């Protein structure tokens, strides 16, 4: 899967050795294959540069993901029910820029691009980045390939919050803040219940409570979902509105939604990226990470907090879009490498691109009607997920 990666640094390393003029340097790689030969080699070789240890680099996969995002954004603003040509779209984009050439664009086209398409595309990118980044972080901190950003009850809490607003007949402007509060509240309850449990002296390792947090999340989500379903059953007239929110949609996206999520996404993504090395340390398990000096309980709490804030904000403006948090990080792992230095940033960019394209599909396959986003991401996501599971099992059997 990463055949190109390990080879490249070594080629460069031996090229440098040649340049430095060590005649026996070229043979070093061969000799090191035999333990004993390598031992003699290094005993004699004080003039040797030590082995070059490089950490995983995200540069190339990140560049590819950014290119994909650029394409997705371009497609996203160009496609829609109003039949605007790419040239018109480009002109409409330019005309609002500070220094633009003299252009004559109909004001209605400018409005379509700037007030309808652009906020929707940008919001889709922010939501996709957050769901994918949050999923990657949850998978890292819970060391579970099936973890997604909804693991601790974000979806159930947001769903209940949104349902309350809709059946209560409150203004739809209240949807995002109440959904956000429900999502964040559900995770807080999960964490308080889960991290307190299972911490007797018998459990080895520090805290030892990851499993109990996940189980508490299952219980909290079940409870909140039950309440939400009861409310739905009591207010069947609101069903369609509730469902269209739950299945995820960006059709009402506005700049105010973008302004609402942007700070959360920036802070959350920044905090997650700052923990990329520690998430790599966690790959050897909580007990070994602790013996390497990591405060595992604090790391887990910080990462969950960051991922939850961002995910809750994303869910609050977009509804419950499934699968992005699982399929995007796993695709990145399989294709670019499993280090969180790669997985976190590349997942965020790739998740943004994926959701923008999924939203394009959502509004075109059945135009003028819109297909729920979760349907699109699941139709792509479910088969892919099976593939990920199979290949993970295959790799585990090999190791």
């Amino acid at each position, binding site marked *: 899967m990463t055949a190109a990666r390990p080879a490249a*640094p070594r080629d460069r390393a031996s090229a440098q050795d040649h340049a430095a003029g060590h005649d026996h340097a070229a043979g070093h790689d061969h000799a090191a294959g035999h333990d004993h030969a390598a031992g003699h080699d*290094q005993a004699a070789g004080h003039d040797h540069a030590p082995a070059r*240890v490089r950490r995983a680099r995200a540069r190339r996969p990140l560049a590819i993901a950014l290119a994909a995002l650029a394409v997705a954004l371009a497609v996203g603003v160009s496609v829609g029910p109003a039949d605007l040509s790419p040239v018109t779209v480009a002109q409409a984009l330019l005309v609002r820029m500070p220094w633009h050439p003299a252009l004559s664009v109909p004001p209605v086209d400018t409005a379509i691009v700037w007030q309808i398409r652009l906020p929707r595309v940008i919001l889709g990118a922010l939501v996709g980045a957050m769901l994918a980044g949050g999923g990657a972080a949850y998978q890292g901190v819970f060391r579970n390939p099936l973890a997604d950003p909804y693991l601790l009850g974000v979806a159930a809490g947001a769903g209940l919050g949104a349902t309350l607003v809709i059946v209560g007949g409150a203004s739809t402007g209240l949807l995002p803040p109440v959904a956000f509060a429900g999502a964040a509240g559900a995770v807080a309850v999960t964490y308080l219940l889960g991290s307190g449990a299972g911490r007797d002296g018998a459990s080895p390792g520090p805290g030892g409570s990851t499993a109990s947090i996940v189980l508490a999340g299952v219980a909290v989500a079940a409870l909140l979902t039950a309440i939400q379903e009861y409310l739905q059953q009591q207010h069947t007239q609101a069903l369609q509105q509730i469902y269209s929110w739950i299945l995820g949609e960006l059709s009402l996206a506005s700049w105010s939604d973008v302004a609402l999520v942007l700070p959360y996404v920036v802070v959350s993504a920044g905090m997650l990226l700052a923990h990329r090395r520690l998430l790599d340390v966690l790959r050897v398990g909580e007990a070994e990470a602790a013996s390497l000096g990591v405060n595992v309980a604090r790391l887990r709490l910080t990462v969950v907090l960051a991922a939850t804030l961002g995910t809750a904000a994303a869910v609050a403006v977009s509804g419950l879009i499934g699968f992005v948090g699982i399929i995007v990080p796993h695709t990145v792992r399989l294709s670019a490498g499993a280090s969180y230095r790669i997985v976190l940033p590349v997942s965020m960019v790739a998740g943004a691109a994926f959701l923008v394209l999924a939203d394009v599909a959502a509004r075109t396959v059945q135009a003028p009607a819109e297909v729920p986003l979760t349907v699109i991401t699941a139709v792509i996501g479910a088969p892919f997920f099976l593939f990920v599971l199979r290949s993970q099992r295959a790799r585990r059997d090999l190791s």
Partner: protein
Amino acid sequence: MIGLADVGVSYGATAALTGVTERAGDGEWLGLIGPNGAGKTTLLQAVARQVRYRGRIEIGGRPAGGMSRRALARLVAYVPQRPQLPPEMTAGDYVLLGRTPHIGYLRVETDADRRICGELLDRLALSAMAGRQLGTLSGGELQRLVLARALAQQAPVLLLDEPTSALDLGRRVDALELVDALRRERSLTVLSAVHDLTLAGQFADRLLLLDRGRVAASGPPPLVLREEVLRPHFGPGVEVLTTSGGERAVISRRQRDQ
């Protein structure tokens, strides 16, 4: 230098370790021996603070109980019996994990960290493996790599739980020779659990015989590796042979009716 005073560990109502008092000086190798379930692993885990313990553990004269994880990780490097080895991680990245206690929170490795790890890979004959994924390495290479990660912590105390259990007979001696050379180079205090009593006797300066969580005997190998000391704990079939070179070999002989 490490000191244990009346250290005990319980798993629920079960006492796994009781009243262990012991010292090991700089550069000293203390071998932990004893039958299965004797408490060897638990003792190592207590020193690494992987389990809660009673009593007092001091490292370099400072009580270990109140230290932060990071401070402890600068003093104690712990190699568990079955380390987790993510198959897609590269060997270079794996060794760099050992620098964690020296890297600030949310910081990343510096060139100095990479140089230290590169030198360790050279020292342990793993230079060519730096870019390889762990899933592609052999058992012996992985065993040295785990040791390299522990040494990257630059801690004066090295805890090894059955470091040779996955290796063949020849590789076991190689691995222990390597540990021996490294502890002399760096005057490391080594605490290791070793199943093979013969090897334990050849490498350790002193042996600590544990049984059911208590110290049954301790002292230099010739004093501990005696039939009358070992038999009550390992069974009546244990025999201690002396080789022509004067080394003690411990074997377990089949019991037959005459």
